[in-house]
């Protein structure tokens, strides 16, 4: 079994550590950096996009790409023939779950604001449908360039009840987050983020899957693969983490439900963990 790590930073380390703990001792892991040849193996577990790209260039083994965004995975492998088989555990949440979460946190939302750049590669029709199912609408605003972020923000915020972050680092990055959070706070529009980092910075709430949670799911798949010698279809993460910013909620006079209430509401609308 080859474990191909995209990076040696904390999330990848956390993933590796949990995976080692969860795998039975009989399965031997050889950890590699994604440069040079991958070599033949029973299964290549590629962690992150960089590792997935590297694995794709040498398709002699079955590949399980994990901790990859669905859009990134699709752009690499969609329509590609992989003789030995390929699957994935995505890092991002399905839109339905994201939207169910949003409505569990903020049931009264009518207009969901969305910023995207012309380079954004996301299939968002499921998002529009999910929001419509909850009786809301999406106010989408494209951001033509970093210089235009400010006016796009003002425009989307003046017509939205909540701003939903999408994984687009052209819009949401360590530099721009300040402008986005300060402006949305001024408009009293909360931001739903993508990670704990967003919540620490000032987002109202976020739903995300931790590397440790992906690792658990990966371990299960590896064991299943060993038993059946086959890969399941690509899937979204089973488990997720909820993070809430009570200070921001209080300042915006939003009464946040407890985490367990949020999970309960999500189960009722069908977006909870399967």
């Amino acid at each position: 079994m080859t474990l191909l790590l995209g990076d040696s930073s904390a999330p990848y380390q956390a993933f590796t550590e949990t995976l080692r703990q969860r795998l039975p001792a009989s399965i031997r892991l050889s950890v590699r950096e994604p440069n040079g040849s991958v070599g033949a193996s029973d299964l290549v577990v590629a962690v992150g996009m960089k590792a997935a790209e590297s694995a794709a260039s040498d398709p002699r083994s079955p590949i399980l790409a994990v901790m990859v965004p669905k859009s990134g995975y699709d752009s690499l492998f969609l329509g590609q023939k992989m003789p030995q088989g390929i699957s994935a555990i995505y890092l991002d949440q399905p839109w339905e779950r994201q939207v169910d979460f949003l409505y569990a946190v903020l049931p009264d939302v009518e207009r969901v604001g969305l910023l995207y750049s012309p380079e954004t590669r996301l299939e968002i029709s499921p998002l529009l449908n999910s929001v419509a199912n909850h009786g809301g609408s999406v106010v989408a605003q494209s951001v033509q360039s970093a210089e235009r972020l400010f006016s796009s923000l003002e425009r989307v915020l003046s017509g939205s009840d909540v701003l939903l972050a999408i994984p687009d680092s052209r819009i949401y990055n360590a530099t721009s987050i300040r402008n986005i959070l300060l402006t949305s706070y001024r408009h009293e529009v909360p931001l739903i983020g993508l990670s704990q980092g967003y919540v620490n910075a000032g987002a109202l709430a976020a739903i995300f899957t931790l590397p440790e949670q992906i690792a658990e799911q990966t371990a299960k798949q590896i064991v299943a693969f060993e038993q059946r010698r086959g890969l399941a279809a690509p899937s979204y993460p089973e488990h997720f983490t909820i993070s809430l910013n009570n200070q921001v909620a209080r300042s915006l006079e939003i009464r946040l439900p407890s985490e367990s209430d949020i999970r309960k509401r999500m189960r009722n609308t069908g977006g909870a963990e399967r």
Partner: protein
Amino acid sequence: MVAVAQLVESRIVIPVVVGSSPISHPKLKRASDTLALFSWFHRIIARTYLNETSGMGRCLHKKAKTIFGCESMIPFLYRLLAAIIYASLLGQPSWAIDASGEQSYFEEFPVVLSASRLKQPQSEAPSAMTVIDREMIVASGARNVVDILRLVPGMYVGYDSGNVPFASYHGATDQYARRMQVLIDGRTVYLPPVGGVDWLDIPLHIGDIERIEVIRGPAAASHGANSLQGVISIITRDAVSMNGASVALTQGNGGISEVTGRLGQSGDDLDYRLTLSNRSDHGYDLKIINDGSRTSQLNLRSNYRLNSQDSIDFQLGYSDGIRGAGNMARFNPAGGFTEPPREIKTVSDYLQIDWLHALSDGNEFKLNYYHISRSYLDNMPVVIDKQGYQIHRHELGLQHTLPQGEHNRLVWGANVRHDTADDPLTFRSPQALNVFQVFVHDEMRFSPSLLANLGAMYEDDGMGHRNWSPRATLNYHVTPEHTIRAGASMAYRSPVMFEQYADTSYLVSRPFKNVRSVNPEKIVSKEIGYLGEFKEAGISLDARIYQDRISDYIFLDPYVAAGPVLTFGFANLLAESHEGFESTLKFRWGERSNLVFNYAHQRVNCAATGIMTLAAFIPRLQAYVNQCSLLVPADSGSILLTQQLTPRLQFSTGYYHQEKVQVLDAQWPQNLMRRVDMRMAYTFGHQGEPGSGDISFVVQNAFQDNYTEYSNVPQKAGFVFNRRFYLNATLEL
């Protein structure tokens, strides 16, 4: 609400672009833009300060003797502007490179909305609070900051003359309203020698204000000494709030004229915004009093991020004013005017540095330093020397917010302040004061519905007084929508330098020289408030009843000095009791209509509690006590209605009502005021983008209710607030 381009489509197919961003050489592009802007500002400055014939930047009253050239500010402005613009070329925004990877989920972000940036919700605040936001400021049509304060229940706003506005909560003041704390981004701006605030002169542009929070009631525990009756806290817009450039022009009757230029840029780790303005008007009535003014201002705010936890906010401002002075109504038959028409030159500036260290666990440290200075030169030729003063204030402060679990938050801090006043005609020698304060505030949540705020401040005022100012408040949410607040607090006002140290004994008439020791004024305040949200009806209500008892009220105490000359000192002579009811009702119906209604009913009683030096003056004190109830208007209020007529057209109107009131040092009471202001505004283009902007027309006192402002000018001379109108055009560049 401005129309929003709602791109709600049934399916948005977002194009896939492989490769680099379409913008090539962004730095070069931005550099050329910035240089073009620089040359535009060059032209604006040249027009404003140099071109006499354009009429915008003329020195006031050219016939009067001018001791300062109007051009004195140019080199300073120019150097500063050049420095900022060239510095801005360094930190340009650019797209991040990778958009499809997993990095979006693992990126570390700085703590942006840290404790001090988050405002406390009104239902959990320890005091009654009025918040005036940008929308209200714009809708009011006000040109001056002080006029906005008419939207605070119980606030008195008056003009000693067209260029001496002042505001005082719960009346009972003179033009040096000194029983309120006034803060701009945490910087105190009341003036040490006399107390009060020179509203016209503060380097602050009305368009740079994000919101004004007015705490009604003493708040020494959280806002320092001198917040005896309340606190006006002005929060300006963040450095990041301006990206691009804009220009605005205002022209109206009575010499109303203003030109404003703005420039701002947000970058990777540096943001800044810059506002330059020049405004002038002729005041009330040049035939009676010479009270025109011209003020040129510069304000810069920038924010620099050192790393994800530390940021530095840097602000500076400069204001350069020429004021008309002199009273044509006070003609001295023996030889000209007793107060001849002349010009006063004022310069105010400040520099403020705030270092914020915010951790993701909620801990926050804030270290700040500021310096304010003001110089004032009255070219009145009658006394020994020119009248003038120079004031400096330096303050260093530290504040630490530490969350202790979900249910407790503690804030503590300390400040040291150094005030100096060099005013040879008022004080024999330059005065200096060192003030030290330490404060602690704890917010405890006993249950989701019960919250307590406890706080105290200890202050050494540098005059030999050391006082504790405690405050305790309970907020009980009967339901999440209905809150009852009950609180009690105690606070002090230290004597201002003038009350303690003034020495004008060289004057033949009405000299001041204090010989008694003056103690701080003390207030004990109690209140019960209610806050209600009726969401279905679109109504919110904020109401309170209060009782404030001020003791050791500082008052004039005449005595006979060697000479014998009747000299004025000060002593703690009075007690005042304020009682009243205040309410704010907000009503929003539909998306387009908004109404704010403020009402205050007040009552004041006074009693002589101290001993006057001269028994002969006791009847005067008693006369004051007897008239005391007139020191506040029994009923006052305001209504602000905003109506979005079409997506681009907005109408708003304000009504201001104030019953008869006697200002402490005015000769006559001010009669009933009923004033209606109106504003109509049209916006064009895409909001915030180049080529967009708005045109607005404002009428103040639209129905020409000839009410008089507080003034020492005899009202018989027909000194009234006339109808004013002005047209404003703003264009984003």
